[in-house]
């Protein structure tokens, strides 16, 4: 036991010899957790098509048009300057630009001279939607004036007005009537939300906290391979042969040291999740411990097996980061697994990250308890047994 503790202590000293290790141990995981929690898409995102709007009129009418666009279910108006809009349009970053030029006011509407403009990228399907939304918005703002104008035109076609004053009076009474008809008009469309179940269970904070925890803890655990390769390269493993320490003592000391450090790192990140992100990590402490411990064991076992295949420390550290990142991405730690095609969702069940992520989401997202995480913990334990067996059997001092 003393020897095991001595190996654990030695590995801790080596790992934290450089203060830069703290960067990977706690600082970067927190930064990534925080940024991805705010940056990844959530169900509350505004999915409407972006429409750049240039408001050069800045009148009540132009504001009303923009407000109507805000109410659209299809487009999301983004008011900007003409230069910025033109620049984005030229770079094809905006499919359309809606320009309300100076002079769009009640007078221009009454005189029929009001003209708004829409720049559209050719053959772009978004512009069809944007144009319809703009037409709806300008109709809602101007339909009573249009109706009054139309009434004046029809009246004039039957019998010309005697004077401009009579024409204006006719327009005003028509406008009043049109506004009254418009106000009395009933809602003609009703929206009923269906009962479709959302296939994607997702909370950016919970997913980011669990996913980044797995990413940043699994990479150093896979890095156990680098420890073995480094000791083998440096000849220190051979030296151990001459000491009265067994292979089991060395392996147990090295692996348990890394698992303990991983648990400390996990607890720090869980603490950040609870305190800074208000996540309910601590609701079922036993279940939490079980899933964290089995996850750490599975990752450490994989690192042990890797260490028996890899020859140099350089190879091991590169491959640890590569496997850590790829396993994390494919295991649903960065983006919800439900976004992957069904075949890939099944295929990635061979990865420990998939099970670790599901177990942690059972706890922090789905409100599960010990019984709910036992299947995932069981699979992770299975991974641990399998990879430790391969690793121990293949382990050589030279």
């Amino acid at each position, binding site marked *: 036991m003393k020897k095991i503790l001595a190996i654990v202590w030695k590995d801790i000293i080596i790992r934290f010899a450089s203060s830069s290790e703290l960067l990977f141990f706690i600082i970067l995981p927190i930064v990534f957790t925080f940024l991805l929690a705010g940056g990844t898409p959530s169900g509350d995102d505004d999915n409407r098509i972006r429409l750049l709007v240039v408001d050069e009129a800045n009148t009540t009418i132009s504001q009303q048009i923009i407000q109507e666009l805000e109410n659209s279910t299809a487009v999301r108006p983004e008011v900007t300057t003409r230069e910025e809009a033109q620049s984005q349009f030229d770079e094809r970053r905006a499919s359309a630009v809606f320009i309300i030029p100076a002079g769009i006011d009640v007078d221009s509407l009454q005189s029929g001279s009001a003209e708004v403009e829409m720049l559209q990228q050719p053959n772009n399907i978004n512009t069809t939607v944007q144009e319809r939304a703009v037409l709806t918005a300008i109709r809602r703002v101007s339909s009573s004036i249009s109706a009054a104008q139309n009434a004046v035109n029809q009246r004039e076609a039957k019998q010309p007005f005697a004077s401009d004053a009579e024409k204006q009076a006719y327009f005003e009474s028509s406008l009043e009537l049109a506004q009254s008809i418009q106000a009395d008009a009933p809602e003609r469309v009703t929206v009923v939300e269906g009962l479709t179940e959302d296939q994607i269970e997702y909370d950016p904070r919970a997913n980011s906290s669990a996913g980044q925890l797995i990413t940043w803890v699994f990479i150093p655990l896979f890095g156990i391979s680098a420890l073995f390769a480094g000791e083998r390269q440096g000849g220190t493993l051979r030296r151990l042969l001459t000491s009265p320490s067994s292979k089991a003592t060395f392996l147990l000391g090295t692996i348990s040291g890394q698992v303990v450090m991983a648990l400390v790192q996990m607890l720090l990140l869980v603490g950040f999740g609870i305190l800074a992100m208000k996540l309910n990590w601590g609701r079922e402490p036993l279940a939490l411990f079980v899933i964290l411990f089995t996850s750490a064991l599975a990752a450490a076992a994989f690192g042990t097996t890797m260490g028996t295949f890899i020859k140099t420390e350089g*190879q091991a550290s590169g491959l640890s980061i590569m496997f850590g990142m790829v396993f994390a991405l494919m295991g649903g730690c960065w983006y919800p697994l439900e976004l992957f*095609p069904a075949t890939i969702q099944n295929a990635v069940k061979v990865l420990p990250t998939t099970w670790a992520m599901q177990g942690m989401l059972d706890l922090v997202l789905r409100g599960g308890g010990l019984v709910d995480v036992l299947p995932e913990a069981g699979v992770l334990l299975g991974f641990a047994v399998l990879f430790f067996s391969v690793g121990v059997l293949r382990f050589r001092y030279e």
Partner: protein
Amino acid sequence: MLKLLLIGIKDLKLMFRDRAALTFMLLAPFLLTIGMGFVTGRFSGRSTGLSDIPVIIVNLDKADLGNALEDLFHSDDLTDLVEPTASSDPEAARQLIDDDQASAAIIIPEGFTQSIIPAEGTMFDSNSVQPDPVQIEVYTNPSRPTGAGIIKAIVDEFVSRVEEGRTSGMTSLSQMMASGLLNPQDAQAEASNQFQNVDQTESTAITLKTNTEGSQAVEFDLLAYFAPGMALMFLMYTVSYGGRSILAERSEGTLPRLMISPTHNAQVLGGKVLGIFFMGVAQVGILILASTMFFQVKWGDALGIVVLILAAVFGATGWGMLITAFARTPSQVASTGSAVMLIFGILGGSFISLERFPPFMQTISKITPNAWGLDGFTTLALGGTLRNLTEPITALLIMGAGLFVIAVFLFNRNGLVQK
């Protein structure tokens, strides 16, 4: 110049002999690109944007306006946008939405037309019972909010057109009757005339002038963003790997040996920098080529791509040199390089589009070659050319040159390349 090239090519050859480094520099970004392709639906055809939104139309009205709305969804204008299916059973249509088979169902109830266009003889008859308002039901799929929102917007536009026509017709008729130009006997015929094409009313108060510019549609390929995103992230590892070789050569004694040869210090340092630059260009170039070969990524203007790669690698090389100048040992360069790689990866938009970050983060991201590089790659993928890359290329060149000057100053101060 020859010596410079020789040193650079020597370092490039060394990189290609280091299988572990090659695996990390090439295989890791490639695998992550594949993963991003799955996530974004690029490989399963989910990422092509808005098209063929499935919608179910239940037309129980079977009159002018109900038919006009149904025809609208089958019009040429919307043929690429929506994929309508007719149904006669509202409950079955709602069930299909609940089962996630379509984005929305439009249920046009019986009597919809009549509720807007009164039956003949009833419009100006104060004794006739006016029909109750009848509402079109848009039954939406909450798991497909964008598609459902677009269907609702199309229905809204149709209804607003009809409503404008109705208001206009009612106003004209009422006003003319009030001014005695239309008698009640003729009013019905006039009303039929007014409401005949109520669904095709054009706004007269404001004219919308559309201006379609350019001539070619460009479909944005998501991998044209994520593939260079991953390549640029791992480029930061490559440039620090190159920088590490400078310190490794010093500790192994080969750098002092180079110094005592008839080679100027600047040539040695320049050669090493050139080596890093070659490594970066080789790495990004290979990844771009591989993405083109395996995933048929549409990158856009080829000349723009080449110039952008060169500029992005130049900017990243500056960072590699700066990291090396601050570090004392090769392992310090390695750990700092890995940290910078990850930080720049997330800040530069390799994982998530920068548009999702708050403005201050978007400003901070400008210190990374990743953000400028991705900006350029996006411009090209959207159909831009080298002419549109002035800003990112200038920024990357200034970044590379500025960091190189600082690194040289630090190298001189630390006596790294002194004889």
